[in-house]
């Protein structure tokens, strides 16, 4: 049974390389996009925490800044 799955009637090399290529591409794209997202979130956190208090308060009133903060580390801590 296991041998049959690996050999795929002699087409194993083609079938497994196609599936492997697809899964490697998925993983690579996911990691690249995740890395870019985390990088932007870190930049946002750094910039936000260096703002003066009155500017932080005014930014927190805007829904989008609040949402970004909820999804980044500042609020989680």
């Amino acid at each position, binding site marked *: 049974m296991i041998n049959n*799955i690996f050999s*795929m*009637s*002699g*087409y*194993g090399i*083609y*079938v497994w*390389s*196609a*599936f492997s*290529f*697809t899964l490697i*591409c*998925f993983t690579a*794209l*996911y990691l*690249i*996009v*995740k890395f*870019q*997202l985390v990088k*932007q*979130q870190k*930049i*946002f956190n750094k*910039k*936000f925490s260096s*703002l003066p208090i009155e*500017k932080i308060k*005014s*930014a927190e009133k*805007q*829904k*989008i*800044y609040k*949402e*970004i903060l*909820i*999804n980044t580390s500042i609020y989680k801590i």
Partner: protein
Amino acid sequence: MFNYFEPNKIFSITSKVQKYTIYIFIIVLCIGLFEAIILSPKDYIQSDSVRIMYVHVPSAWLSLGIFTVISILSFFSLIFKNKNFPLICKSLAPSGILFSIIALVTGSIWGKPTWGTWWAWDARITSMLVLVLFYIMYILAWKIFSEKEKANKISSIIAILGLINIPIIKFSVDWWSTLHQPASINILSKTTIHSSMLIPLTIMTAAFALFALLIFLMKYNTELIKIKNKGLDRL
């Protein structure tokens, strides 16, 4: 109507949906892989090599679908000057190009045992390669032009021009004599594929669509935070 697509309004939704999408994607992909590799039967002519279909076909469908969406939204973005449509298009492009590359590579791998060649300059494969080039041009336009308005205009023109290629890809097997077989799955006429193969194909397509959604949401949030980072400087 387009106000519903304002980034400020949909950011909270995209952030929440993103968290659940990855888990649903993993579950659906595992079911799809089990169906495709273990449960689905061999083809009576192509034997087990037919299983490549379960990654090749969903990739090809999604790459065409994503490019069509990019083209339509680009057209509306040029007409209605909506700020969010270019952001959506830009976020869709990475998964679109990935699917088109997967379709080409897995098609090439499938071609060797089936046709005896890795590559042939037939209408379907060549038009698919043209789609990859359109995706590359679209992504490069955003990278090359630093001025946002100009980048949006040029990338939109590329996307709209690329739309001409979509029906060529779809109907190439009917219009010209190619190595590719005609479509087995038709919405309007009878589907010629057996349900034992159609079910895994549908599940794999759902898994791939979920992956496209996941990448789109992550990329969209990245682009939005990038814009807000610039906004913080102006506060």
